[in-house]
């Protein structure tokens, strides 16, 4: 069951990711990105990190991507036009991409122990309680710094909302 779900959503995530890069229209790209995020959220759930999954859903696909879509719609951006490719991109693009893939594969295989299987549901740090505990003990300084950052952003938002429509 877990494997089926994992494969399904992993494939969806990859397809959506490709689609995001290949789509010509910004709204289609943005929606593909949302597809990636939702699939990732499902994968988090499969790993047993419900809170992180929910946060992924609420923050990334629920709030940030809505802003993306909002801006794209507001600017009424149309499909992007194909431009004349630069010489370097035309000839070196695909070889360079392959090189990047090769290097990253090499790094990943080197850095993780071979033959270790990922177990679904075995991770036990993704529930709301665990995440909260970690945030307020080990990561309390980054957490508070981020809070202050967000507070500044909120003050800015309030200032903007205070402007009369005239």
């Amino acid at each position, binding site marked *: 069951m877990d494997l089926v779900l994992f494969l399904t959503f992993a494939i969806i995530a990859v397809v959506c990711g490709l689609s995001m890069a290949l789509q010509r229209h910004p709204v289609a790209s943005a929606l593909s990105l949302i597809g990636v995020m939702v699939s990732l959220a499902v994968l988090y759930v499969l790993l047993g990190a419900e809170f992180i999954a929910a946060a992924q859903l609420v923050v990334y696909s629920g709030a940030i991507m809505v802003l993306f879509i909002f801006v794209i719609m*507001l600017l*009424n951006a149309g499909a992007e036009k194909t431009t004349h490719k630069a010489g370097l991109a035309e000839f070196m693009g695909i070889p360079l991409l392959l090189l990047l893939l090769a290097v990253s594969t090499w790094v990943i295989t080197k850095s993780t122990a071979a033959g270790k299987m990922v177990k679904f549901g075995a991770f036990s740090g993704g529930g709301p309680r665990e995440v909260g505990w970690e945030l307020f003990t080990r990561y309390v300084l980054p957490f508070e710094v981020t809070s202050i950052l967000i507070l500044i952003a909120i003050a800015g938002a309030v200032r903007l909302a205070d402007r009369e*429509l*005239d």
Partner: protein
Amino acid sequence: MSHTITAEPEEKQSSHTRRMTLNMGPQHPSTHGVLRVVLELDGESIFKATPDIGFLHTGIEKQCEALNWHQVITLTDRVDYLANLSNNLCYSLAVEKLLQMEIPPKAQYLRVLLAELTRINSHLVWLGTHALDIGAMTVFFLCFREREDILRLFEMFSGQRLMTSYIRIGGLALEPPRGWEKRVKTFIDGLPSKIDEYESLLNTNPIWLKRTKGVGKISVEEMLEIGLTGPCIRGAGIPFDARKMTPYSSYEKFQFEVPTSTDNDVYARYECRVREMRESAKIVQQAMAGMPEGPVQADAPKAVLPERERMKTQMESLIYHFKIVTEGISVPVGEVFQVVESPRGELGYYVVSDGTAKPLRVHMRTPSFGNLQGLPNMIESRGIADSIAIMGSLDFVLGDCDR
């Protein structure tokens, strides 16, 4: 009508804002008929507004020239279909002035009574639709409940709910029906409490106040310059009302106030209209109380159709009837500009006679046409939601505007 209105070319606009041209109307729920406003939007705020009228142009002024003096009355009904009796009255007063005819006092009082009922009727429709535009839909049904009563009264008087044609050259079309006093009295005595009901829904409603206060302001000088009349200019503090300034049809005998407000915004116009309804109710009550006895038609056999009964018994009346119906009446050469205070503002009929049985020219200076000219100045640089509130507050009728 369907005029090509082009937006500014894009290269002229600044590079970081791209404007969207929105074609509001002619089929839009809040343009009250077939008004088209071409909006240039920057996000949600209106950069430029261009009203486009003429979709309801029916050539009434041209038709008037093809009909005889009496027949024109039926066309005046169709000009402003919410204030048809005011239009009847204005035209009749103009022709009577050309004929230099005396109108019996009872007819004058009944005309005042009917004109004020028309005002209440029109304001009720306005209040209902205006509140509906801003989103308060219950007021609409309450207003139409009372409007229905007024239309029943009109039907009782004239046999018609909308196209009454009841006020005629020389007086009224018919004697008022039996029992009209009681029904008008029941209605008009109950009206103030009904108006309280609408006000209780709106006056203390914070959302209503937020949506209407401070919205749609332009300076008084600009208003006069553009030619706004009626509650719009009274909401700016100028007590400009033809009933007081140039009284007609014995308005000088009535005690009433011209409600004004100095806020000059959508709320001020709302307030003025609602207070006007109360004043109109007072005028109707005074007209009922002081109703003189006598005929309702002038004693001018050459111009006024004789009574049906007399026509059947008197030879002379039959001859006059025949002559008026077949030839029409002849009105002395001259021209007259008659002004009445319609619910929407200053309604003027410029009537020119060349002595024949048909008018040479009937020009209608309608309040909606004048008020609508002020629309761009009011809604430019405001949001779409405000433009709806402002359009509602101008209270235009497109039939009145396009004629």
